């Protein structure tokens, strides 16, 4: 191999902070790093299908800008770093599909807040990542652009809905990515792909410019190679946004400062409802080992109860689908996106457009949500679910009276095979059992690599924090990462 290629092969493996150090020392330019990533995408993405749209021209132009900034001594942690975005983020002048046919060739006239903040920080956007259609799914299989494959085993799902965001980290086709998490859509694919994934507290990151699935549950967060990167990404996008009424006006702490490595005396809760009989033995083993590791670091474990855990999936599939049925009403072929040909009337046009544009999972959820809100069923389904949501929230608040964070599995099993659960939606929904309660409670949680299954698939652990307690869970995740080597493993692809 010529030496040039060798350098490129290394660049795509770097974390944000590693690449940042080299950029700062001017050992490498952002253009070189971006070229390396683009080459890597070209080489491996046909196998993984993590990208829907790659934007080499825009990326190289941004990289040149970043290099100019760096030359002028103006370098922020993300300046010149190649980053991929879930295709749920609207991007000015770049086709945005949300992995749905119904958006057609929609080219947004604006950037969302998180994207604008990344650009402001000097990040280089390399492309738009595959996902479940409208973020509805746990496997990445509902994309109109074909399923994303797990770089650790191409026959397996990468998890979802931020499937491309996780797979691109594992395949090393992006230095870091941004995803969204409505019911586990960052943490579950992060766990399945062996990367770090953070779902911040609801309101911590603006949702402006994020295509809505379930507005009261959606939250933006990073997927990265390690916890330090995760903190850096969160730092760049967090904070109040006057364009999102639900974003919270609280100061943003310095998240990297929280990564002290010191977790002595930290109290971690173990909720009995999460350590259930059906738990996969490999997952169980990874958790047991993690607990031992933490004990060695001076962490104190406390048995706790989150009594309404068993009702979370049912609650979620009523609340999320109800909101989705309304959020997705705007896709009817009038102002943008796909429009069916040859409709006889307006109502016909609406119905045909939506029938052609939406995939089966999206239709199913629109149907369920429409039903849950409809006259005569509202109280029994939607309102009931909202009340149970209150109980689930209270479970967590009560638990946080005695613990600093909660340690749980992310998913009951490692990644399953493509096609394994597509026939039975309910079984698919139940695979989100450990991540969904966090969304209903509106709090934060992080997934960190914590083991490998017998057949070579990554397993993550979940640390759940109190609302706006990102610093605590990042500190705990970072300490674990320092004590173990799971995050250094690479998928061979």
């Amino acid at each position, binding site marked *: 191999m010529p030496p040039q290629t060798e350098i490129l092969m290394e660049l795509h493996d770097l974390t944000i902070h590693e690449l940042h150090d080299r950029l700062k020392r001017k050992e490498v330019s952002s253009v070189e790093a971006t070229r390396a990533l683009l080459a890597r995408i070209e080489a491996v993405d046909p196998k993984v299908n993590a990208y829907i749209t790659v934007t080499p021209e825009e990326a190289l132009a941004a990289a040149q800008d970043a290099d100019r900034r760096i030359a002028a001594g103006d370098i922020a942690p993300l300046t010149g770093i190649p980053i991929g975005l879930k295709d749920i983020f609207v991007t000015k002048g770049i086709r945005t599909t949300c992995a749905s046919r119904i958006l057609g060739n929609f080219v947004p006239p604006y950037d969302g807040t998180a994207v604008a903040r990344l650009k402001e920080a000097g990040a280089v956007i390399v492309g738009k990542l595959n996902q479940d259609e409208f973020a509805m799914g746990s496997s990445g299989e509902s994309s109109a652009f074909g399923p994303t494959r797990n770089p650790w085993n191409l026959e397996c799902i990468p998890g979802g809905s931020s499937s491309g965001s996780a797979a691109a980290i594992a395949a090393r086709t992006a230095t870091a990515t941004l995803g969204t998490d409505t019911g586990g859509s960052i943490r579950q694919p992060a766990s399945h792909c062996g990367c770090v994934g953070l779902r911040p507290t609801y309101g911590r990151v603006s949702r402006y410019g994020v295509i809505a699935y379930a507005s009261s549950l959606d939250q933006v967060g990073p997927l990265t190679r390690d916890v330090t990167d995760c903190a850096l990404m969160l730092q760049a996008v967090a904070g109040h946004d006057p364009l999102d*009424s*639900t974003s919270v006006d609280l100061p943003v702490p310095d998240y990297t400062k929280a990564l002290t490595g010191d977790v002595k005396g930290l109290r971690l809760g173990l909720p009995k409802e999460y350590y259930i009989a059906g738990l996969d033995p490999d997952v169980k083993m990874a958790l047991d080992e993690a607990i031992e590791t933490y004990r060695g670091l001076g962490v104190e474990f406390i048995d706790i109860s989150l009594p309404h855990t068993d009702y979370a999936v049912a609650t979620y599939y009523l609340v999320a689908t109800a909101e989705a049925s309304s959020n997705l*009403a705007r896709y009817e072929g009038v102002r943008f996106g796909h429009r069916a040909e040859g409709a006889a009337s307006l109502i016909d046009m609406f119905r045909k457009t939506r029938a052609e544009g939406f995939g089966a999972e999206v239709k199913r959820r629109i149907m369920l949500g429409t039903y849950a809100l409809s006259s005569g069923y509202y109280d029994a389904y939607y309102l009931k679910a909202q009340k149970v949501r209150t109980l689930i929230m209270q479970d967590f608040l009560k638990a946080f009276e005695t613990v600093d964070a909660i340690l749980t599995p992310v998913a009951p099993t490692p990644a399953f095979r493509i096609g394994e659960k597509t026939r039975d939606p309910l079984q698919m929904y139940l695979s989100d059992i450990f991540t969904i309660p966090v969304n209903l409670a509106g709090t934060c949680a992080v997934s960190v690599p914590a083991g490998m299954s017998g057949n070579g698939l990554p397993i993550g652990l979940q640390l759940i924090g109190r609302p706006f307690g990102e610093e605590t869970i990042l500190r705990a995740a970072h300490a674990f990462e320092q004590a173990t080597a799971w995050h250094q493993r690479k998928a061979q692809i």
Partner: protein
Amino acid sequence: MRFQPVIGLEVHVQLKTDTKIFCGCSTKFGAAPNSQTCPVCLGMPGALPVLNKKVVEFAIRAGLATNCRIAPRSVFARKNYFYPDLPKGYQISQFELPICQNGHLDIEVTDLNSISSGCQGGKEEATRAYSDVRRGADDEVNAGRRLKANSVKRIGITRIHMEEDAGKLVHSDIPGLGSGSGVDLNRACTPLLEIVSEPDIRSADEAVAYLRKLHQIVVYLGICDGNMEEGSFRCDANVSVMPVGSTTFGTRTETKNVNSFRFVKQAIEYEIERQIELIGEGGKVVQETRLFDPGTGETRSMRGKEEAHDYRYFPDPDLVPLVISNDWVADVALSLPELPEARRSRYRSELGLSDYDAEVLTATREMAEYFEACIALGAPAKGAANWVMGEVTRTLNEAGKGIAECPVTPERLTALLQLIEKGTISGKIAKTVFDEMWSSDKAPEAIVEEKGLVQVSDTGEIERIIDEIMAANMGQVEEFRGGKEKVFGFFVGQVMRASKGKANPAVVNELLMKKLKGA
């Protein structure tokens, strides 16, 4: 059988804010199609609404002025339905927890109203009789808004809520439109208040009285431009009929978007008659939405509704609850202008004006404020009232101007009134001075001075004129002395003419009478 109509009104008031309710786009009327739009009001993927604070303030104003309770906590909800002028597929409105509830307005009604809601046969006759009264009243008052106030009736206001307007559909006059419709979203997301009355209204005339009053209030409050042609104030009428004496309401119909007082009256009267006839023929009223056709004065069923509506309201997760403190309400209350009703009673009790004068002067906030500015500057109440209602209004009407653009300021008018009061000029001369002020921007004193218009009250001077005129008209003097007192007027006229209108009429009267009687 005699029938009793039952009417409830839903009024949509477009608020006079600079920007839309959930985005910063301008609300200016008449812009090029889709030129006042952004991702939010276009319902683009990813866009989120942020509430315009002014809209809340305006809603509180409306609530206070209609005696509502302002909710300490209210919530926005989504009303879900598909229509091409509704970009998001839902309208952001309020449902379970609106900002204002439990208010009322008092309207003045004539006794004829109770007749007009009587039996089928008598109805038309009663209506005709009633409109004759109305016409008389209309002649009496230019504003055309006065009823013969026989009694006061309270109309309950169920609720007032905030919501966004939809866009506009255009079906013709677009080159190349073909068989389609055009969608213009400039109006989408414009702030509206929906004011919902209780079904307390019993006739078309009560409905109109209620609407006029509500219209006057929202314009007074400065929250709505009141322009009905542009749709700033539009009304949906819920109408049903029930046998007199019944306590169970009949099935109602909803006639949508009627945008003039006259049309509201026509639409309701048509609907009452139609329903009574239908029931009389053994038919049944169907609960439905109807459309008023201003061309025929009739309502017709809106067909093409392929399903019953199920709006699936639920709290909008994109907007946070609205919490209004007592302090905020108190601040808004302090900023409220005095409303017409309070003004009228103050004009009567403090200024000693008649009901009629008080009503005319408070017809618009601008006129009342002009009038009050004069009073504050020391103008006599009755004189100011007569001048504002008379000369000022007449001249403004001729010029096609509103009182806000009146070239004669309250200061100038007051100065003029004071010249009359002091006897410096006569009322007649004052009109000349007023006309001069209108076009010249000069103070009345300067005009009087310049043109030598000072009134002659000097008895010697006037006596001299009277003597001359009596000498020249001895025949008429004899007539007067012979008992024909009518010729007195002739002499007054002659004296005034000889003095070029400057003689003080009171002095002229007194001296003439003395001299003619030969004293």
